[in-house]
């Protein structure tokens, strides 16, 4: 059973917050239900991408029933952010620690296996996105989970190319990782996590 805690998102185009819930410990069924909910809007967005001859994100046609099976293991945790009755973003993290590559190296790091915003929040896919701050809220949740696991707030992920600029603002860009098809690997140290939450450079 998942647990909830209060969070918020920003209404796109307005300087106001919308109350949201971080839903921690989503089940396989909830993960699959979210992808089903997002699929029609993705397909709609796909038409636009096909016309523009843009590649669409590969994970849109993953077999999510297999990926969701990872939630049978303690090592994997799925967290979502819900607002106005719908999941606005999803994240899956591995609490089986990776080793930090940013100094000091070898420290336990929470690895974010997957993170994504709902298609209707993305300006590349829709003319009027609904909410902003999904990435910020989920990074915040990842740092909290990292702290909870004793990893000091350290997190890491491999970014899709379109998302690199976002992560570069808050994390260390370690460059293309050939063991992950050349996707850029990003790490956030404990100090960077503190700065992310408190502000400042």
């Amino acid at each position, binding site marked *: 059973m998942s647990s909830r805690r209060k969070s918020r998102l920003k209404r796109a185009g307005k*300087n106001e917050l919308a109350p949201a819930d971080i839903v921690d410990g989503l089940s396989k069924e909830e993960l699959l239900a979210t992808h089903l909910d997002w699929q029609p809007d993705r397909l709609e967005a796909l*038409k636009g991408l096909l016309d523009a001859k843009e590649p669409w994100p590969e994970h849109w046609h993953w077999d999510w029933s297999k990926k969701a099976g990872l939630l049978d293991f303690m090592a994997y945790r799925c967290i979502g952010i819900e607002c106005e009755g719908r999941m606005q973003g999803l994240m899956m993290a591995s609490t089986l620690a990776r080793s930090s590559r940013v100094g000091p190296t070898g420290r336990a790091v929470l690895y974010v296996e997957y993170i994504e915003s709902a298609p209707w929040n993305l300006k590349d896919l829709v003319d009027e996105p609904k909410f*902003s701050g999904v*990435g*910020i809220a989920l990074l915040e949740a990842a740092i909290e989970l990292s702290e909870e696991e004793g990893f000091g707030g350290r997190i890491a992920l*491999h970014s899709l190319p379109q998302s690199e600029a976002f992560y570069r603002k808050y994390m260390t860009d370690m460059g293309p990782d050939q063991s992950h098809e050349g996707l850029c690997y990003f790490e956030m140290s404990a100090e960077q996590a503190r700065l992310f*939450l408190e502000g400042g450079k």
Partner: protein
Amino acid sequence: MKVMRMSDELFLKRAAEEDGCMISAVGLQPLHAKKAESGQQLGEPIRFAFSTLISYRRRALRMTMEDVAQKAKVELDELLEIEENLSYVPEVRTVHRLADLLKLPIPQLLVLSGNAKAATAELTEAAVRFAARSRAVEKLNPEQSNALNEFVKVLVEQKGKETVKK
């Protein structure tokens, strides 16, 4: 356990900067479960059809494996695996790049490569027929050319039907 939260003011500022940009991150490797199993579940004729399709198409376009590897920006050894190892399931990204270079429809190629579930019985049947008509030879003879062209025609028709449905 202390609750980590940024102030609402800072959140608003950061969210405004996020401004609807993509935030997708994907740890591909750990989530690729059991590649060999996927290939086996697919069925040899289908996978053979994929290998043969890539190989024939490459040859029809008069490209060596090195040419394809260079132009599609894929590893040469992965291309070798695709054309010669029936239990190898290529990365989705690789299938995209090959589809782009060889001008083949992506969704159907993903099915044939074992990365997506089979869409229709018609596609499966066409793949099996193509596999049955194909042989591992040095040159593409007229019969193989015909088999290739007919199969590609089915793939494109399939794609057209799926687009109409949407």
